[in-house]
């Protein structure tokens, strides 16, 4: 058995604005209902979690204007954190992971917020930690310049240490709620943290009581060396974006080796691989659908390139789209992705057209054929599951939750039901 999740590429944002099968998205920007429907559907499908990406910038790198960002709403992202209670109120079991930046949240605020959310969600919340690689985002937070890539991860490691220390500031048996003797908590079991690090300090303790998970689930993505070290050290689940089943296998092996070196049990981290299955009623129909999607993407090349401009803080509109991808190894954000493109020798047009979403293995076919392939890939790679990286539309949700998931379940590949009440326990159940 493996885990399923959904990677929401623009978080609590706007998906496929004004496109076919996207419902009332034009007027529903900022409305939670699509995501509530998604949560209930994915819970029906037995998903372990849904993960909301995030970003704190409205880019104006591409052509130097905000046009590509707002014309179709594609880079609008609402704060994912306040959406969480809407999703958990409508569900009972599925985990909800929201992205927060270790560069922008003080550890005390993050520890307290997620301790509270752990209560509000009855133990079903997680945080996806990013270090923020975008210069404009840093400037939104008043920081003058980008912190070098590797230092960001040093800071992030320390950030996690403070947060975990604060989550541990109340002993498990500190809260008594002894109504007869009128003792709420035993003060000898609540401790100051007195954290003094290189980047952060916090006295503690938290003034919130531990939630059902005590430590909300920590999720991480980012394939650079520093990113992988961070994931192996701190994460409970890792989002992996690689190409091909061999890379899937080596990624999982790499995470395991790093964990063993750190004294962690590799089973304590679930590595999920991004996929974007193209589903139809027959293999031929799925191929046709895939070809149509590639064609539409190629025709919309400027929007795709705008995404790269944002990704890399470089205005790609000034390059010839039919020249090879330039070397951006000095790029401070998304290093590993950029290196992959430069190595491939593809033109910008080719790289962008074929990029679509991050996709570890191409999956094109019927629910049954794709389920079988997923099982085989997972057997070979030894990973822990997959994350769907398709745009959030009700059509896509239905194809996955009511098409693919039942096929996976029939083959015994995903859970028939949730065994535990908390996200952490369900994630670590197998």
């Amino acid at each position, binding site marked *: 058995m493996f885990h399923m999740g959904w990677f929401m590429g623009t978080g609590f944002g706007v998906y496929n604005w004004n496109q076919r099968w996207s419902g009332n998205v034009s007027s529903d920007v900022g409305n939670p209902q699509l995501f509530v429907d998604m949560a209930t559907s994915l819970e029906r499908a037995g998903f372990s979690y849904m993960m909301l990406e995030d970003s704190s910038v409205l880019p104006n790198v591409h052509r130097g204007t905000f046009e590509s960002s707002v014309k179709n709403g594609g880079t609008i992202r609402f704060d994912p*954190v306040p959406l*969480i209670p809407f999703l958990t109120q409508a569900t009972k079991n599925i985990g909800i992971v929201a992205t927060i930046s270790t560069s922008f949240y003080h550890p005390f605020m993050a520890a307290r917020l997620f301790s509270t*959310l752990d209560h509000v969600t009855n133990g079903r919340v997680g945080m996806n930690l990013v270090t923020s690689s975008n210069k404009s985002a840093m400037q939104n*937070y008043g920081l003058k310049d980008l912190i070098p890539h590797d230092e960001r991860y040093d800071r992030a490691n320390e950030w996690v240490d403070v947060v975990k220390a604060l989550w541990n500031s109340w002993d498990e048996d500190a809260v008594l*709620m002894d109504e007869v003797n009128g003792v709420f908590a035993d003060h000898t079991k609540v401790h100051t943290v007195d954290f003094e690090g290189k980047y952060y*300090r916090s006295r503690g303790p938290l*003034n919130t009581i531990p939630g059902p998970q005590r430590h909300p689930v920590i999720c991480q993505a980012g394939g650079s060396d520093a990113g992988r070290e961070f994931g192996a050290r701190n994460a409970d689940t890792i989002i992996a974006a690689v190409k091909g089943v061999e890379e899937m296998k080596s990624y999982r092996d790499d995470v395991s080796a790093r964990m063993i070196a750190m004294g962690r049990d590799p089973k304590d981290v679930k590595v999920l691989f991004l996929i974007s299955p193209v589903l139809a009623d027959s293999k031929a129909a799925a191929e046709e659908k895939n070809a149509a999607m590639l064609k539409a993407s190629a025709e919309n090349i400027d929007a795709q390139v705008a995404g790269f401009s944002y990704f890399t803080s470089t205005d790609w509109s000034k390059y010839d789209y039919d020249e090879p991808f330039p070397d951006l190894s000095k790029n401070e954000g998304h290093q590993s992705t950029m290196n992959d493109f430069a190595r491939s020798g593809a033109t910008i047009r080719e790289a962008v057209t074929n990029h679509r979403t991050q996709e570890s293995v191409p999956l094109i076919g019927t629910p049954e054929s794709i389920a079988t392939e997923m099982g085989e890939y997972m057997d070979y790679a030894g990973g822990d599951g997959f994350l769907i990286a398709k745009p959030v539309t009700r059509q896509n949700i239905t194809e996955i939750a009511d098409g693919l998931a039942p096929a996976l379940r029939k083959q015994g590949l995903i859970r028939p039901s949730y065994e535990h009440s908390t996200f952490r326990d369900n994630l670590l159940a197998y």
Partner: protein
Amino acid sequence: MFHLGWFLSFSTQAWHAPHSDRGGLFPNTDVYVDFARALERAGFDYLMIEDGSFIPDAYGSSMEHSLRTGFASPKHDPMALVPLLAASTEKIGLIATMTTSFYPPFLAARLMTTLDHLSGGRVGFNLVTAHNDRTAQNYGMDKHWDHSERYAIATDWAQAVTALLTSWDEDAVVDDTVNGVYADHTKIHQTDYAGDYFSSRGPLNVPPGPQRIPVICQAGGSPVGRAFASRFADTIVAPSGSIEWMKQYRTDIRAGLVDAGRDPDAVKVLFLTDFIIGDTHEDALELQRRRHAAMVADIEGRLAYMSFASGIDFSTFDLDAPVPPVSTNAAKTTTAQMFAGREHQTLREIASTIIPSLEIVGSPATAADQMEAVMAEVGGDGFLVNSPITPRAIADIAGDLAPELRRRGLIRSEYTADTLRGNLTAY
């Protein structure tokens, strides 16, 4: 007509007191959902969740009293509760406290705009500077900035947040599905805010919510706090006292608004008020007598409260001697109020005396009489109920008192606007 609000904490409520129902199950959130729905039925303008980020340890130089009794701790983050309440209600305003000392302006502006969308325009933020060194130490400082600098920071913060909240013009979202344009990029502007304490490039990466600028609430009573409120606030949490005192307070606030170039009627001043409601007036007086006796009997609780507010450890003082002059960088106004004109009294006398805030005591009918009379005298905009949320308090105030006020035409019979701002400024 006047406005009603309820002032609460996301805390233990009266967790082991009589009639506290599920208070003992803190932090079960069902209690808050039931509460918000009851207040909405009653026509309240808003509920306001105060907040703090430390466990008090001034009294006895230990967290013991606070943790043993559940006094002022734990407190959970109200920003996580607001969405749950928004999902469970349709009309009532939801205000949560945010500290200008520790929330980055961009995070604050984006969070509040998101909540504004999620709630259909019903959120507000109560801005505080956070008064305690312990809070500052949790956020990595040795001690808090002094009182006046905290407000200088808050002013810069409010300007930065306002600049971000207005970074999209009102008509930037065109939602033109025929030509495929969601928003007009020429109406979205880089903010480039640069103040003494904060800078932010902007714009926000979210379109404005229904209110664009969520309602701003403020509670400071000091001169700099009032100056801040007169510039930014839409509603003010006012301490209460004698009729004369409240009248003077409101006059001062209105004068400050005029000085700041604002319409004094644009800001709603709600007085924090204790309510004791009985079936009959005599029942209420008996409840009041018992409540006061219990408070006086709990001298330790009184001293702990005084220590909490002032940061001064009153456990080290002689209970039966006059209190030497004290000064504090913490809640200045509250601390000054405790001792004003009482220099000759012993600590025991001061601690045992109920701080003279406004109490409305009576049957629903006699309580309504009193409220009507207070408003006629003071000319204020309404009341903020200061009570833990227990089923009894909800039943008394939202179930008995509010319908009586409504029958008399003293509070709204229905919500006439969709947004908190709209309802708050409807009258």
